[in-house]
């Protein structure tokens, strides 16, 4: 008498069932979660009411799909993605650098990092964007000797103002995230690599940073999603992002509110994609800290027992 248990296929447990007489499986009636059913019905009802209200509102829903893949809107989407990624690259690179500077024994570098973070975290990003755009009042020219010379106003394009405004601001936040990550790594790790004769830089790059990543990645994913939405502020420096594109289209076609829904839908699509990416990145950096990697969502779905309404992660008592 053998009972099939749904084991993970990779567990390599290939013992023939006959060899180890498995004990008879326990047959018990599972706890009934009536509360879950009731709350699910309630939630669906509220959702239905909401959908109904929106459907009957004075919104011309037909225009939403019509303009979803509009050329101008797509150009806005592309620009939003570009500026998000580039700003995050600036933010992460500079952030790591600032975090290392902040933790340095050198009082000059740590003070510089402290001052930078103090300034860029202490002023609103909207103000910073405007400042970059208008810095021509202070620096009339930008003069890099023989390489480059131009008026500030023609040097500081909307793209550059958006990139600097968002990226430099992000760096201050990333610096704090990275600092927390670096400090979370056990001091014994540094001692062990120093004892092996590794330099400070090598220790940081090979031993401390990879372990700090596990702490750094989740909030960075958050920052990425935040950044995607914060890019909607670059309208202040006339950068043609998603929101700018949809408002332009909205004004010319008279479908202002409809276009806001288009923008919202696009932002949702983009943030969803990022969330998935974040999940896999976290999984990658969990290497070595857990014995088995957590399953991917797909694996979870394959394994899920669909009959037990609500999975274990839901946790709460419905």
């Amino acid at each position, binding site marked *: 008498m053998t009972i099939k248990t749904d084991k993970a296929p990779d567990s390599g447990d290939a013992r023939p069932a006959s060899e180890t007489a498995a004990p008879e499986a326990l047959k018990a009636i599972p706890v009934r979660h009536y509360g879950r059913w009731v709350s699910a019905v309630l939630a669906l009802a509220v959702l239905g009411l909401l959908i109904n209200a929106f459907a009957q509102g004075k919104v011309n829903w037909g225009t939403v799909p019509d303009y979803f893949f509009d050329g101008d809107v797509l150009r806005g989407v592309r620009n939003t993605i570009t500026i998000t990624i580039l700003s995050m690259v600036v933010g992460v690179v500079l952030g790591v650098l600032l975090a290392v500077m902040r933790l340095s024994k050198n009082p000059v570098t740590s003070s510089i990092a402290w001052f930078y973070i103090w300034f860029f975290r202490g002023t609103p990003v909207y103000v910073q964007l405007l400042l970059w755009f208008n810095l021509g009042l202070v620096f009339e020219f930008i003069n890099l000797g023989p390489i480059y010379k131009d008026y500030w106003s023609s040097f500081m394009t909307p793209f550059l103002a958006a990139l600097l405004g968002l990226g430099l601001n992000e760096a201050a936040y990333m610096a704090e995230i990275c600092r927390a990550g670096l400090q979370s790594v056990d001091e*014994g790790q540094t001692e062990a*690599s120093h004892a092996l004769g590794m330099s400070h830089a090598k220790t940081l790059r090979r031993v401390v940073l*990879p372990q700090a990543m596990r702490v750094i990645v989740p909030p960075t994913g958050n920052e990425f999603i935040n950044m995607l939405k914060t890019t909607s502020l670059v309208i202040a420096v006339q950068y043609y992002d998603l929101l700018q594109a949809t408002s332009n289209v909205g004004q010319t076609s008279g479908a202002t509110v409809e276009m806001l829904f288009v923008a919202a839908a696009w932002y949702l699509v983009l943030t969803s994609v990022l969330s998935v990416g974040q999940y896999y990145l976290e999984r990658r950096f969990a290497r070595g800290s857990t014995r088995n990697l957590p399953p991917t969502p797909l694996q979870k779905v394959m394994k899920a027992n669909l009959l037990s309404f609500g999975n274990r992660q839901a946790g709460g008592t419905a």
Partner: protein
Amino acid sequence: MTATPMVKAEGVHKSFGAVQVLKGIDLEVAPREVFCLIGPSGSGKSTFLRCINHLEKINGGRLYVDGELVGYRQQGNKLYELKDREVAAQRRDIGMVFQRFNLFPHMTAVENVMEAPVQVKRETKAVARERALKLLDRVGLADKAGNYPSQLSGGQQQRVAIARALAMEPKLMLFDEPTSALDPELVGDVLDVMRDLAEEGMTMVVVTHEMGFAREVGDSLVFMDNGVVVESGDPREVLTNPRHERTKSFLSKVL
């Protein structure tokens, strides 16, 4: 004794803030010697060990490894601190094994062992890997090369840590209570590896609570208490006929 001592301490002082941890340690470790340090916790034995490879800076006295001043350079009667790079170079020849293993958790066992030869000695990965596998085999873990530290038992982790230290081909090995964090069952495997190492002639300074190991493998033994050396000599002699009251009372509690 003609050979330069591997470790030579002259009046070594160390304090953390106002607390004096080492109050003038004088001792010598000869090449190929297994030198055991015992004593109650807080006696300064681990701190002294960490001074030997400059993980702690000493506040007074002189500390030499293989005739070379640790962490400083003396010119005339002035003492200059060494640069980080120079300190790192000194540490290459001194292996250290920690109480809590301190393996790199994001690397497999073999990667842990390869890391320093590749990064510090600039060996090629192929050469380093081959030697790392040999070292893992020597500590009895050839089949665990691809495992991450979290997939190994404490005793296995500590043996990987020993292999990692040996990969730099040190002339001196420091052991900081290498078996204190292990389940009693696993202590033996680690001690066996250390015994083999001693037989091959490695100079070892071992901070330990394993009196059996000290008696059997140790060439000399020092009992430290409260930052000073209370008693030293042949381990069998000190452990069976302690002359000092403090040593007697300590041994009566641990033996």
